[in-house]
């Protein structure tokens, strides 16, 4: 089953899509030994693409600065823009991983827990992208979109916890139980 879900989710876009419409499948695939590390690179790529498409004016400014020979200024502008956009997701990823690991009890696996949180945060980024597109049409739904994004991701965090608690106990713990 794990092999099947991993095979089916072999493409980055499919895995992102699965986190949105088939979260259990995405979480299962992410938590499997063959899927490890993929969801963290998936969310990283999505976040970076979001920075590129949402902060185009900064790239334009940085381009001018490079043209003027101000490489340091261009770098600073891009870094500050990226930092503004990435700081909250990074905090949520780290805090979410710690919480998930604590709640997973003896079934915790730090790296896999981090991967599960990466899947859980995908809706937050996706909703932000939808909001940015809708805002282009002149609709200001910032509060609603923030509420949807956070609630959606919180729901996925619960599913992630379920997934983490479904893991088999490590041999040592299982023996102790016996």
């Amino acid at each position, binding site marked *: 089953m794990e092999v099947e879900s991993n095979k089916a989710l072999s493409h980055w876009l499919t895995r992102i*899509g699965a986190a949105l419409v088939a979260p259990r499948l995405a979480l299962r695939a992410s938590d499997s030994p063959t899927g490890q590390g993929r969801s963290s690179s998936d969310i990283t790529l999505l976040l970076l693409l979001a920075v*590129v498409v949402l902060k185009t004016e900064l790239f334009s400014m940085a381009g001018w600065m490079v043209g003027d020979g101000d490489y340091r200024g261009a770098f*600073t*502008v891009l870094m500050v*823009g990226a930092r503004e956009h990435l700081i909250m997701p990074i905090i949520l990823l780290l805090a979410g991983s710690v919480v998930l690991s604590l709640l997973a009890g003896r079934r915790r696996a730090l790296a896999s827990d981090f991967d599960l949180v990466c899947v859980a945060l995908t809706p937050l980024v996706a909703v932000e992208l939808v909001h940015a597109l809708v805002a282009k049409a002149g609709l200001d739904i910032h509060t609603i979109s923030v509420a949807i994004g956070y609630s959606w991701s919180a729901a996925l965090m619960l599913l992630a916890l379920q997934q983490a608690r479904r893991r088999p106990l490590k041999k040592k713990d299982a023996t102790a139980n016996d």
Partner: protein
Amino acid sequence: MTEVKRSIRAGWVIAAILGGLLVLNGGAAVRDCQSLRPVHEGEPAPDFSIPSIAASGALGPSFKLSEAKGEIIVLDFWATWCGPCKASMPVLNGIAQTYADRGVRVVSVNTEGTGAAQKARRMADRLAPSVDLVSDTGIASSLYKVNTIPHMLIVDREGTVRWVHRGMGTTAQLRKDLERAIEALL
């Protein structure tokens, strides 16, 4: 398998949204390309008029850049929450004291709006009492395309931008760079 099909579809929707935003925002960036160009060396300094912050922390008479023609103006955009800005303030204070009698004026532009005037005054009194403090509600920051702070510029006696500095290296390097730029204009 239905789940996989739905996932593929959702993935393509996300790709389409990313593509749409790239076209819309990228198009706007290309269209407004000229207006996005940061103020650079050799360009006439955009004029602005913003309130000064008096010793009491209340808003005082306006500072108008064009009225300072004939002086060398060091503009420093900063905020009270910005660590590197605070670190650079004693350097600017030293510059203000060293070059005061040679027609150099340091104008410290607080970018947090008039509501932060009291706080800005307290901080400036502690770290850079010799600089002129002004309060910006976004007018000067947007004219100079200030996206990152600290952001410093030197405007010569004719009103032309001669030096631009973004971010913060070491205070020693900043002092050296400022002194070199000012000496070249004296």
